[in-house]
């Protein structure tokens, strides 16, 4: 089981330039749940995820990640963020990319195991520059699974994936939720049954 982390956001507002994307938004994501953030393109789903990750400072309000009763003020060690960019170096192999992530962020699993789980074992030693968009997405998701933090923040995790890749990703998300992990995903498709929906208008 994973140490449960509860994510709460209170009265969050987001401003990009002159435009107010959302205002007074509150959310609670408990351990063992998947929260799907939905909303039209440009409504601020990515901004909300970046706020929860601590990469974007909210215009108003605050995000807290609470682990087993104590407030942890270093949210970076509790979460992994899969952005809409894959954050992979084209000149390095998939394994080199993951090995670096393991040393920079820490890892719960082996790089080879993570790539194998996402069906990338044969391509592990090829430069990422040769990969298709779907293969890069698989590699980026493998990194998230390898790092193995309790909170997963996923921005369109199944974008560009084929049906087999989508099935693996959904299976791993479901397994993480079943183990007591907290998953917040911006997505347009139903990932698992019983997911809470947070709609931004």
């Amino acid at each position, binding site marked *: 089981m994973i140490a449960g982390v509860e994510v709460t956001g209170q009265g969050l507002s987001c401003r990009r330039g002159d435009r107010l994307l959302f205002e007074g938004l509150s959310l609670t994501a408990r351990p063992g749940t998947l929260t799907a953030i939905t909303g039209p393109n440009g409504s601020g789903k990515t901004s909300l995820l970046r706020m929860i990750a601590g*990469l974007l400072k909210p215009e108003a309000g605050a995000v807290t990640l609470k682990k087993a009763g104590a407030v942890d003020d270093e949210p970076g060690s509790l979460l992994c963020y899969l952005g809409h*960019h894959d954050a992979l170096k084209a*000149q*390095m192999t998939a394994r080199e990319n993951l090995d670096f992530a393991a*040393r*920079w*962020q820490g890892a719960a699993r082996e790089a080879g195991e993570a790539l194998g789980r996402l069906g990338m074992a044969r391509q592990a030693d090829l430069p990422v520059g040769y990969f298709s968009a779907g293969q890069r997405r698989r590699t980026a998701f493998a990194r998230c699974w390898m790092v193995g933090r309790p909170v997963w923040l996923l921005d369109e995790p199944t974008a560009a994936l084929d049906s087999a890749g989508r099935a693996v990703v959904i299976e791993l998300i479901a397994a993480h939720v079943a183990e007591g992990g907290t998953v917040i995903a911006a997505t347009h498709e139903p990932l698992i049954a019983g997911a809470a929906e947070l709609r931004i208008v």
Partner: protein
Amino acid sequence: MSAFLALIRRDLLLSFRIGGGPFLGLAFFLTVTAMLPLGVGAKLNLLGEAAAGFLWVAAALASLLSLDRLFQADAEDGSLDQLALGALPLEFAVLAKAIAHWLTTGLPLTLAAPVLALMLNMPEAGYATLTLSLLVGSPVFSLAGAIGAALTAGLRRGGLLLSLLVLPLFVPVVVFGAGAVSAAINGFEPGPAFLFLGAISLFSLVLGPVAGAAALRIHLS
């Protein structure tokens, strides 16, 4: 520590696979230095006198070459987000990247400088001081340069703006670096200029990572 070394190692690897590692800056340094006698003419005394100052300016410009991609590449592919979410604060990421940049620019330039000094007919008395002063002063090009690189990380054609931002920061290093070499050649004590050079270097060792990380945080949000 292992995370810090891993980032230095990653950047060295990328530098070799993308831009020919240390050889690009070196080739520029060599080419520009070879052009000086062609422009000035074979006036050996004039070349010898100008050598120290010229080599310092050329080293500053050669360091500038690869500086614009220092954070830009990471900002474009999303790696900067992952660097910000690592086990170490962003300040250490900036420091590690600046060290990797110095290892592929400042250090090879320092090692090549005495050979180019010979080519420019610099008096022998200045060789040791030139090498030592570049060793002490060239880290400023990477450390202070990281501030400008972080400020222009989000700009697609940020190279020119970057030059305008960081070249003024390089001025004191060039002044005291070339000053130390001139002093040694003319039989004066280079010590005081060296102390200033060391002070600037230590100052940028602290200021570079802190200011660079602050600029990157602005870029991320």
